[in-house]
Structure formats: structure tokens, C-alpha cells
């Protein structure tokens, strides 16, 4: 197990990257703590897998370096880095038995037979594979095979980090929950550093202590699920995390407040020194917009009952917003007034959250 540091790391698949778009991963500096469970979350094509492959050593970064416990491993092969990786599709050695599959990485590292036996039976027990140990791996179901892939990672006691590249894509929804909780349990028991790539926010939120949100090769925010929810550092994070995502209102700052078109928003915090910004927007989650006696006049377009919540589509001028209210609450019929919870209303300057503005009262 190790602490992983990425130093000014960047990667491009083109030989001579020129424009910003040539970089699959834009320069980043990050630290992953020893024993942490991390999720890499982002839409398809945002560079998650590239980053994962760089950490595992399958890909060499164009610039920058990777350190495991302060030791530079940028030039080392995956085998030398001593990592484990579980892929999107189960990778098993078809012709070997389950036992031989699990023992394979140990045999290649020349461990003695007694140790191998002991480790394999431990892992098999953990993953409930004991009954099929002597069967050919090719005969197992998809989730059985994925358990083997997982087991080949876990069987080595000394791995620096275990990486998961959307490992539950091919698994039944019902078994997904089981395997995911199995992973959490394993993490608690053995304290491996784990990195989990996914584009599914539920999966990320349930698995990880800390979530790294990426978009277009950039790391936008690293934080706990609560931080991502309450203080999204970038409008994309606000939009991507949460269902439905954060409301984003383009605004202009005037002396007496923020205006969306000609309508003044119900926000009292200071609004003056933003002349340099290219774009200004206010972000507030549907959970933090509420009906009240005074505030912004809105029209109610649609109201849906989605189980525990009611979701209302509301509108003022040309701006549409979403609002979440508890299902017991009675909502006004066709028009009403709304307010924003000041604690969870954020100002975004060119897409990034203004953290100083947030603490003004």
C-alpha cells in the first residue's frame, strides 16, 4: 500500500500536442492518500481510463511524474509497480482452473507452494469461489469471472494500489450491489488503496470516501460526496452530481444585486467587483430552492411526483429552474414565489466557484 502522488502530470496521444484539445489529460497535481478509497467520476471520454492506465503503468505520461510513497515510478512497468487492476470486462485465463487463475500472479513471482495455497484459499473464501476452485474458469458466469479478475488482484498481499476500470458494467444489477458491498468490506478489512473508475454517480458515491470529478481531461474537484453536493467547485460538478443537477443561472452583477435579464435574483450578498469576469453565473441545487411568501415571482410549468419528492419546473422570464420539495408539501398551482437558500447558493466566475463570495453574509 502506498501514497500516490501525481506531479504536473499530463498526457497526449498525439506526438506534438499544440492546442488544448490535443491533451487527453491536462496538467494536474494530485495526492491519493494511503489506504483511501477513491472514485474517478466523469462522463465517457473525459480521460478517466487514461489516468488510470498511467497510474498502473500501462501508459507512459507525456510529461510529469508519478510517485508511490515519494519514490518515482514513472519509468517502471506495471509488474514492477506492483499494482492490481480489474478491467471492465472479466479477464480470465480460459484454459486454467479457477485455482490456477488465482495462483498465476503468485507463481510468476516465485512464491513457495505453501504460501500460494494459503493466499488462494483465503481469497477464494472471501469471494465465495471455494466451490468452483477446480473448475475451468471459462465455464463460469460473467460475475463469477469478474470475481476471479478481482481475486487475482487481491491475492497479492503487497499491492500498492488496486484499480477498477468500471468493473461492474457486465454484472447483473442485483449482483452489482452484492459485489460493490463486497468491495467496500474488503477495503475496510485490508485497507488497500483503491481507485475506482466509473461514470455512474451512485456507484462512485457508495463506493468511495473521496471522489475525483473529471471533465475533458481536467480534474475539477476532489472531495467527499457531501462536499461535491454542497459545494460544487465547478458548474460541471454541480450539474453532473445530483439528480437532477444544479440549476445554473447566467447573471450580470449590478450595484444592487445579481440580475438574470431584467429580473433581480433574491440574493443579498455583495455583487460589485466582477467586471473582469467573462461569465458570471449563480448555481443553486433544486433541493435548495423553496417556495415562500416573498421572493422571486415564478410561473410553474410542470410538477411531477417522483416518489419521495416533488419535482417542479419553474420559470421566470426566459430562465427555467428546477425545484425539489418533499412530497407532503403542497405546492402552489400555476405561479408562486421562490427563494434560494443562501448557504447553498454559489457564485461561479467563468465556471469556477468563488469561494470568498460564499462566506460573505
Amino acid at each position, binding site marked *: 500500500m502506498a501514497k500516490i502522488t501525481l506531479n504536473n502530470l499530463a498526457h497526449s496521444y498525439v506526438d506534438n500536442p499544440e492546442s488544448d484539445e490535443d491533451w487527453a489529460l491536462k496538467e494536474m497535481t494530485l495526492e491519493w492518500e494511503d489506504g483511501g478509497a477513491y472514485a474517478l467520476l466523469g462522463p465517457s471520454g473525459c480521460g478517466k481510463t487514461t489516468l488510470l492506465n498511467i497510474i498502473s503503468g500501462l501508459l507512459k505520461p507525456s510529461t510529469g511524474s508519478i510517485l508511490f510513497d515519494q519514490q518515482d515510478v514513472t519509468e517502471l512497468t506495471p509488474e514492477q509497480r506492483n499494482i492490481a487492476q480489474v478491467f471492465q*470486462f472479466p479477464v480470465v485465463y480460459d484454459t486454467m482452473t479457477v485455482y490456477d487463475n488465482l495462483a*498465476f500472479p503468485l507463481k510468476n513471482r516465485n512464491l513457495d507452494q505453501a504460501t500460494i495455497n494459503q493466499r488462494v484459499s483465503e481469497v477464494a473464501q472471501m469471494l465465495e469461489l471455494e466451490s468452483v476452485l477446480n473448475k475451468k474458469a471459462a465455464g463460469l458466469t460473467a460475475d463469477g469471472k469478474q470475481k476471479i*479478475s478481482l481475486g487475482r488482484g487481491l491475492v497479492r498481499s503487497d499491492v500498492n494500489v488496486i484499480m477498477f476500470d468500471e468493473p461492474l458494467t457486465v454484472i447483473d444489477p442485483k449482483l452489482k450491489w452484492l459485489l460493490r458491498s463486497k468491495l467496500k468490506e474488503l477495503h475496510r478489512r485490508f485497507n488497500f488503496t483503491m481507485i475506482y473508475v466509473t461514470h455512474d454517480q451512485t456507484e462512485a458515491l457508495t463506493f468511495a470516501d473521496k471522489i475525483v470529478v473529471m471533465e475533458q481531461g481536467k480534474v475539477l474537484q476532489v472531495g467527499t460526496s457531501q462536499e461535491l453536493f454542497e459545494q460544487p467547485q465547478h458548474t460541471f460538478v454541480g450539474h453532473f452530481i445530483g439528480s437532477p443537477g444544479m440549476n445554473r443561472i447566467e447573471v450580470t452583477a449590478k450595484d444592487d444585486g445579481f440580475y438574470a435579464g431584467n429580473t433581480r435574483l433574491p440574493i443579498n450578498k455583495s455583487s460589485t467587483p466582477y467586471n473582469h469576469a467573462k461569465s458570471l453565473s449563480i448555481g443553486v441545487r433544486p433541493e435548495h430552492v423553496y417556495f415562500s411568501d416573498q421572493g422571486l415571482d415564478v410561473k410553474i410549468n410542470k410538477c411531477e411526483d417522483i416518489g419521495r419528492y416533488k419535482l417542479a419546473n419553474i420559470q421566470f422570464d426566459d430562465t427555467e429552474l428546477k425545484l425539489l420539495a418533499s412530497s407532503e408539501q403542497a405546492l402552489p398551482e400555476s405561479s408562486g414565489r421562490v427563494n434560494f437558500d443562501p448557504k447553498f447558493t454559489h457564485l461561479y466566475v467563468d465556471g469556477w466557484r468563488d469561494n470568498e463570495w460564499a462566506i460573505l453574509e
Partner: protein
Amino acid sequence: MINRTHNEKAWLLVLPVVILVAFNAVIPLMTVVNYSFQETFGNNQFFWEGVKWYEQVLNSERFHQALGRQIFFTATILIIEIPLGIAIALCMPKKGIGVSICLVLMALPLLIPWNVVGAMWNIFALPDIGLLGRMINGLGIDYNFTQQPIAAWLTVVLMDVWHWTSLVVLLCYAGLCAIPDAYYQAARIDGANRWQIFRFIQLPKLKRVLIIAVLLRFMDSFMIYTEPFVLTGGGPGNTTTFLSIDLAKIALGQFDLGPAAAMSLIYFIMILLFCWVFYTLMMRDESEQ
């Protein structure tokens, strides 16, 4: 549950293919069956002979020898072409401009008509004017495929390897390209060496294409006619007379329709039987799982 409705009219849809197969396979085959039990002296007059021709063929020394040569030839080219094909496929580049160049080069021998292949190698290997023949003789080795049985054999085998290894290569290459990168990555992480990657990933994944390659090469080589016929004409003597060359000699050279028909059927059943045995043996693993 969806209820099945039985609709016999569906048979009408199969009719065209049934007619087609009947005319190009079943009816000619039945004609051969008909000939194999009869004797003719021309004039379209036939006399019933029972299983006489079958007994004659099965007991004939000539047939035994041709069969022996045939089996030896097929075994030799399979032993050479399959491993060689896999090896070449493994060496071929996976991406870049090299891929198309290699594929075109590999496909070239397959595009040449069989009789042209025979003629090419005939001239190529002639000891007095052929490039290969003169070169070997120039090295001080006495080589003349028109007179020496061993030289004739080597030339026929070499020609077949040149002509058909490409097929195995192309099949294997397609099979190799179908293996997802994740397998290689996992192997690298597990610390597998080159041999283990071949043994535990590539070979198992190639199994299905290899079954097809072996079956195709077996059938084709067991029925080989044109190339050795043009190259050596079955000689010197009878040393490169394989089953189909012998068959053509009996049927067209001697016009013995009855024995030729009986031999054809025996030949046909043998190929069918061999294929079945090959297929069952190679698929046995699959069904165990």
C-alpha cells in the same frame, strides 16, 4: 410464453436452395453411386456388378499406395503450415502502415489460380533454367525434381506451404486481432512472460480459428489435384500420385467408370469421416465446460 404456430408453407421458402443443392450436389453424387455398382462398355449400356468395384478398389495395392502418399502429404503440410502460420501471424504488426502491406503480401499467393501456381513452381524449380533449381544445383546439391522422388516431394510440399500458409496466417491474424487489449494488460500486471501470454491467452483464444484452419487445410490438401498435376504430373513414376490424381487417371485416362466411381465414394466417405473425427476431437474440450 409465445405460442408457436406451425406453418408448413415455410418449406416453400427453402425450395430454391433445395433445388440448387440437388442439381449441383445430390444428383451428380447419386449418378456416381449408380456407376459404382455397374459395369459399362460404352454405348450407354450398364450391367449390375454389386460391390465388385468396391472390393477391387479396397484390395488394390495401387489404391493403398496412393492413400499412403496422400496421408503422408497431408500430415506433412499440416505439421508445417499450422505452426508456421501461427508464428507469422504473431510477428505481423498490429497497427500502422505495415498492416496493409503485410496483409496484401500474405494474400498474394491465395489470389493466384492453382494451375498457375503449379506452372510457376515447375519453371521456378527446373534444374536447368529455373531460379530455384539452378541455385540449389549451384550450391553443389544434385537436385532434379523431375527425376528424383525426394526432390519431387520436397518441391510439392514447398509449393503447398508457399501457396497455403497465408490462409492460416490470415485466419490466425484475424483471431489475434480479436483479443481485447485488457488481456495483455492483465497479463503484464500478473507478471506473465511472452511464452505464458501465448500459452494462456493467445492460443486458447485462437482455438476456434485454428479448428477452421485445420479443417480447411485438411480437406483442401486431401483433395489436392491441380498443383502437383501441373508440377510433377504425379511423377517421377508414381511417387507424387495422390488420391485425386490417381482417380483422374482411372476415370479419364483408363475410362474405368465403375472402379473410379467406387473409389470416389470411398474417398468422399474418408474425408467426411476424418473431418468428423477432427472436429469432435478439437471441440471436445469446449463441450466439457
